[in-house]
């Protein structure tokens, strides 16, 4: 009898405990369901970093961004005259260099493009391939890497006595970028520009340069950009400077407006790496813009980057 009541007490205690627990359980059940869901891990789906930069162009040069498969990007770029050319010239707005270009996404990683610049009547074509894509999980890397190769040909009438091959310039670049945070992305871009024709024997055909740049997002739609190309050897063209640029990206959904100040007039690699004649710090600064408008030619049914 005594033994029995002891067992009964234990039973009551357990029962009360269980009852209290289950009552608390039902009160918090909804939250627990939610928490249980949050804890469930997705089966190793890699997550790729997107929007390292707002555009495929940083300012003058390319970023690691590629257009998705089936996307056509129409880019209109302007560089006006020098700010220090004074009021008579409306601070450079009276004159403009223009590049009209089309980029196309053959795949999400492979882009081709074509453009025509008024500066020295240059036609340029390029191919861009994303080797590595920054992200988390399987098949991703801590940074993004892009191989870039372009060819440019000047078609000025005065240069027409030169053979076709003598007017060609090639550029190879490796673009390395990492999005460090939602706001900050940095990019390094080693480059070689090969000019088929150099001015003299001392003038090297190959110009080696290292570009560095980045963006800092001010808010959801505005970003500050910076870009500088340092050359290890310079072409024999006087005067001759490294291309420096600062810019502001304005994104309006579908359009990206890039406004910038730079000492470079050209909008392709051959031009801004080897033919920049303005000294930024003497006020040889050109106001310019790139406007990008994308068109989806083929719909995106793929999940892969």
């Amino acid at each position, binding site marked *: 009898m005594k033994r029995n009541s002891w067992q009964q007490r234990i039973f009551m205690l357990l029962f009360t405990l269980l009852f209290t627990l*289950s009552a608390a359980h039902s009160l918090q*059940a909804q939250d627990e*369901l939610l928490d249980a869901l949050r804890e469930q891990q997705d089966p190793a789906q890699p997550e790729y970093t997107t929007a390292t930069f707002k555009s495929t162009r940083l300012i003058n040069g390319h970023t690691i961004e590629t257009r998705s498969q089936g996307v056509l990007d129409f880019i209109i770029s302007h560089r006006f005259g020098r700010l220090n050319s004074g009021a008579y010239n409306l601070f450079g707005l009276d004159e403009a260099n223009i590049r009209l270009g089309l980029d196309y996404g053959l795949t999400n990683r492979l882009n081709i493009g074509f453009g025509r610049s008024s500066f020295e009547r240059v036609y340029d074509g390029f191919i861009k391939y994303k080797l590595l894509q920054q992200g988390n999980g399987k098949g991703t890397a801590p940074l993004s890497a892009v191989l870039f190769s372009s060819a440019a040909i000047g078609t000025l009438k005065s240069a027409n006595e030169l053979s076709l091959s003598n007017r060609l310039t090639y550029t190879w670049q490796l673009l390395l970028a990492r999005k460090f945070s939602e706001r900050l992305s940095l990019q390094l871009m080693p480059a070689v520009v090969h000019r088929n024709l150099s001015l003299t024997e001392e003038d090297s055909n190959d110009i080696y340069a290292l570009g560095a740049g980045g963006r800092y997002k001010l808010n959801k739609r505005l970003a500050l950009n910076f870009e500088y190309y340092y050359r290890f050897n310079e072409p024999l063209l006087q005067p001759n400077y490294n291309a420096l640029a600062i810019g502001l990206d304005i994104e309006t*959904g579908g359009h990206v407006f890039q406004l910038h100040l730079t000492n470079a007039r050209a909008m392709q690699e051959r031009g801004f790496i080897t033919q920049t004649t303005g000294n930024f710090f003497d006020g040889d600064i050109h106001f310019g813009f790139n406007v990008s408008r994308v068109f989806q030619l083929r719909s995106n049914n793929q*999940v892969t980057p």
Partner: protein
Amino acid sequence: MKIYLLSLCLFASLPLYSQQYQLAESRVSFFSSAPMENIEAISSRAKSLLNTQTAEIAFVIPIKTFEFEKKLMQEHFNENYMESHKYPDATFKGKLSGFNPQQKGVQKVVARGQMNIHGVNRNVEAAGTLEYRDKEIYLTAVFPVKVADYEVEIPSLVFYNIAEEVEVTVKAKYLPYEKK
């Protein structure tokens, strides 16, 4: 005797788990209808649990899993509108009313509870249907979501046309929950 009682208690708590259903397949989409263009995005990577004993239901949808026809639009959706780096999931927790676990066939249910989108909590109600097929449960719901309710900003300087109210469609298939 003690062990007998203990195991009884344990068995008593078991049905709680056996009434749990887990999402097996789903398709959550939203549709924005505007004069210039219609926008649709689909996610098939929602997570959900349904407790048929208590009629409680919870949903988690990672914002980044919504697929758009236009990749760039998807990027903007995440970066500028939903700010998915700050608010990675849309969630719902609530109860199904009008739900009878004994009833076979299609039954009408109303989900009442708290929705969290873009970090904003709101009490919502969504009508839908529920159907038992053998061990499977099929759930569907269509309901409107006002973009402004969740403090998602649509700037005036925008070239997309986005409706002020988007229509959300949920199609879900549940299977009995098995603990791994």
